[in-house]
Structures are given as structure tokens and as C-alpha cells.
């Protein structure tokens, strides 16, 4: 296996987004997103914040986009379930209840087309490793988005030549996403990290 290496070029804060994140998103986009649902709006907010942090105005076409959302669009799902439970003939929120709708919302906002998918695993380190194995020489934009509790954590990684820094095996996703970690490398047994 090749030792593909990436540099973390952008990331968002790991904390809860500010209370006015929706207003900030409108300012950032220049328009109010319509009918895409809260999860997709949260994903947009985090992804754009991450790209701003990476000082990128767009996303290159060969970047791998992966989104993980364990809860998915729970508010829209709850609404549809309620409509079905009450025997209402048409669940109007159906499209918003599909987690995959995050992907075209991101693609449209970023004027981007490429390899994107929604993949879940309780173990974020496994997900990051899987993304690295798929990306190989390409870059990655990885996001973890949840409605409850509110979260939109994103990391942008660009392919690079292996730096002289010494790599160690990553022992947790917290370690991989730590502010002091700047490089990921696909090792023989898992992801390796370097400052």
C-alpha cells in the first residue's frame, strides 16, 4: 500500500455552532437556502466555514466529499412520521427527510460535482481511514453533521508530499483532529499523524 499523505488545510471548531449560525449562513451564501432542511443547512454552514478556514473559494473536482450524520435529518423524519401516524395523505417533508439531500445541497452551493456520499460508523477513526483509502492521491472534505445536539464539524485535507515530521499511529479521532495535528498518512495498519 502507498503511503498517501495529506495536510490539514482547514477545519471548523469542534464546538457547537453559534446561535446565529443560520444568519451567518445567509450572509456567507448571499441568499437564504430554501426547502433543503436543517441538516443540509448545517452541513453548508460547516463546509463553507471549513473552506474559508482553508482559504479556498471552491472545491476542486477531484476532492472526495464524505458526510457522516448518525441522527440524520431528525426533525424532518419526525415530521413525516407524525404525518403518517395521523394518516395524512402526503408527507410534505419527505425530501428533507433524506440524509442524502445534504449532498446536492453542498454540490450546488460549492458549484461542485464529484465523488460524494453519506457514510456512517460509530468509530470516526474508521471513517477517516476509509475516506483516506478511497481518496488516495486526491484531497478530502470530511464532515460530521448532527441536528441534535447541533454540530457541524469539518476537516479539509489536501494531498502533499510526506513532510520530514515523524509520524505516529493515530490512537483516536480526537488525536487525528487535534489542533496540533497537521498531517495524516495512510500507514500499513491504519492512519498515522504528524504535527
Amino acid at each position, binding site marked *: 500500500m502507498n503511503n498517501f499523505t495529506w495536510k490539514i488545510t482547514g477545519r471548523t471548531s469542534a464546538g457547537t455552532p453559534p446561535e446565529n449560525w443560520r444568519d451567518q449562513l445567509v450572509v456567507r451564501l448571499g441568499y437564504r437556502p430554501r426547502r433543503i432542511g436543517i441538516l443540509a443547512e448545517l452541513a453548508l454552514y460547516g463546509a463553507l466555514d471549513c473552506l474559508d478556514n482553508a482559504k479556498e473559494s471552491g472545491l476542486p473536482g477531484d476532492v472526495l466529499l464524505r458526510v457522516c450524520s448518525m441522527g440524520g435529518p431528525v426533525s424532518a423524519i419526525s415530521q413525516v412520521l407524525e404525518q*403518517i401516524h395521523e394518516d395524512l395523505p402526503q408527507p410534505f417533508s419527505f*425530501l428533507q427527510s433524506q440524509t442524502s439531500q445534504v449532498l446536492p445541497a453542498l454540490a450546488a452551493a*460549492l458549484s461542485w460535482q464529484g465523488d460524494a456520499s453519506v457514510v*456512517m460508523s460509530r468509530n470516526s477513526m474508521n471513517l477517516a481511514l476509509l475516506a483516506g483509502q478511497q481518496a488516495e492521491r486526491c484531497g478530502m472534505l470530511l464532515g460530521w453533521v448532527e441536528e441534535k445536539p447541533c454540530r457541524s464539524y469539518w476537516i479539509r485535507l489536501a494531498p502533499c508530499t510526506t513532510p520530514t515530521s515523524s509520524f505516529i499511529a493515530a490512537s483516536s479521532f480526537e488525536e487525528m483532529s487535534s489542533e496540533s495535528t497537521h498531517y495524516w498518512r495512510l500507514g500499513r495498519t491504519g492512519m498515522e499523524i504528524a504535527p
Partner: protein
Amino acid sequence: MRPVYLHGRSLASALGANLPQALAAISAGGKAPLRVSLAGGTDWPYFGIDLPEANWRTRARQLIRAAISEAGLESCRHAPLFVASSSFDIGAIETGQARLNDSNGFGEEVAALLEWQGPVYLVFSACVSSLQAILAAYKLVATGAVDDAVVLGVELFNRFSLSGFAAMQLLTPGKPQPLGSGRDGIALGEAVAALHLSSQPGRWRLCGGSNLVDGRDPTGAIPQTVTQMCNQALAASGLAASDIGLVKLQAAGSPANDVNELSGLTAAFDPLPPLVTLKAAIGHTLGASGAAEIALLLACLETGIWPHADYPLDPKLCAGLARSRPESVRYILADILGFGGGHAAVILEDTYARSG
């Protein structure tokens, strides 16, 4: 990159509990969909699996265990498992048999049920979920990260999806007619399908594929993106358009989407290779459709038992469906197009058809 092969496979669908039953049903002319009533007195066709069991979870467990067994995967429990679906256990949630918690719970339940030891990933990208899972599994085996990987497509009955598709006016009131002159919508269906990807040589080699998300239409296919999807899949497989001897379509009977798919394919292939669609036989099985249709297609190609359309095709599409198994097909492109702007394709090689 090393070669990747498809070994074990299985399918439970409206055609039967396993692949031999599915082939027998196709030979006998197929099976008519059931009818499911929704609120407001509407009534829709649905390709359900014939397994009467009131408890959604019990039924799901029976079908998943059977699929793993039919595909001979009991000895692969240390391999990565990719569970692909568009609805997971929403059928249990809507009937009060589970709580709306997090979607990964279903993956953990499947892993516990199968006593799976390897990593479990859930691919949740609507209709293209199974093909994305196959592409992810393919890369792991091709790069030598693992020797085996398993894709499990699961799509089981729920009113949530049926109501949603009905609300969006995407369902046919009658029978689905992919590429048909009277096509007026799709019919949903159930499927549980497993595919075993391995580095060990076998008849079917997975050559590569492509996955493109386009944000211009969150519910349908874009012709230019279909063309790009084909071109990328061919490039990833080291092939030219003229190498493809059969295309397994997404075609589900949608008035607009079938046209968009054909338009994109026509730009990628000149002339169009023989075409086949399986959604008139098993319905659109959403997140399971990629795995389900590949499992069924390979069984059809091996046996020569072939699905045929019992309705007139649309002459305006200028494309016919293969009436029988095409002779000497070596490379097959299989695509799925779906919600979420998903355009995904894989290319398979029948190594038995290699010349010399």
C-alpha cells in the same frame, strides 16, 4: 491495484426468497406487484417479498440471515461489511417497534445478528447507496487493504418511503414500464442482497466504476452527468466505450428520468450496446437496488434466463431492450441514478468470455 472479483451473491426479492427462485419466476413470466393502500384511499403497486411476518425486526433478521447464508458469507465475518439502504429500520420505527434514535443502531443490530467481527459501515446515499458501497469495498480489496469485503443491500417495506414517493407523484398506479411508451412512474420494492468481493480469482471481475453527485437536480438524473459517469467508469476500468457489450440501466419507468438516462448514455456510447432493466421484475428497491440488480443480472447472464418487457417500448427513445442474453458479452456497465443527485456506475467483466 490488484484485480477484484465478485464471488458469493444472494437476493431475496419479490421474485422469490433466493436467486434460484428469482430465475424460476422470471422463466415463468415474472410476478405481479402487490397493492398497498395508503392514507387518503390511494392504492399503489409494491414488489414485496413473500414472507408473512408481522414483526418488522423479526422479518428483517430472517431475510438478512438468509441472504448472508445464500451468499456463503459465514466465513467472512472479519471482513469490512458495508450495509447500504435508503430507509434502514424506518419500517420498525413507524410501527412502534423501534425508537427514532440514530441510524447507526441498525448497522450495530445487523452486526450483532451476524456476529460480524470486521468494521461495519452504513452507506446512506438513497438509491445509489449499494453502488457506492460496492465502489468503497472494491477500493479496499484492490489496494490490498483487505482480501475480502461484503456489501449488504437492505430495503424493506415501510410506509415512510411509499408515502413520500406517492406525495412526489413519482409512482405508477399500475405496472412499471421502463422505457415503455406508456410509462407513468415507478413502483417500489423490497430486496435484501449480498455481494462478496474478493481478491481470489473468479468468473466475475469488478473492473472499476464512478460515483458523481450533481447538485443541479436533487431528485433526478442529468444527461451530461450520466455521460460523465460512463466516461469516468470506463477510464477507471481502462476500457473504451466500444468494449461494453451490455448496459444494465437504472430505468425504472419514470417519464423524465428514463429519457435523461438514455440521452446521457447515447452521448457516451455510439452505438448503444444492448440494454437491460430489472425494475419491471423486482421494482425499484432504492438503496438495495445496486446490489440486488447486480446479483440478479449475473445469475441471468450465467443461466441465459432473461427478463423481457411485456409492454410496448417508446419508439421516441430509439432504444430497445435485449430480448435475450446477448451473445459473447465480456464487459457490462451497470448504473444507478437517484435522489441526492447520485449518478453511479460499475463495470464488470465476464472472465469466461476472454478470447484466447
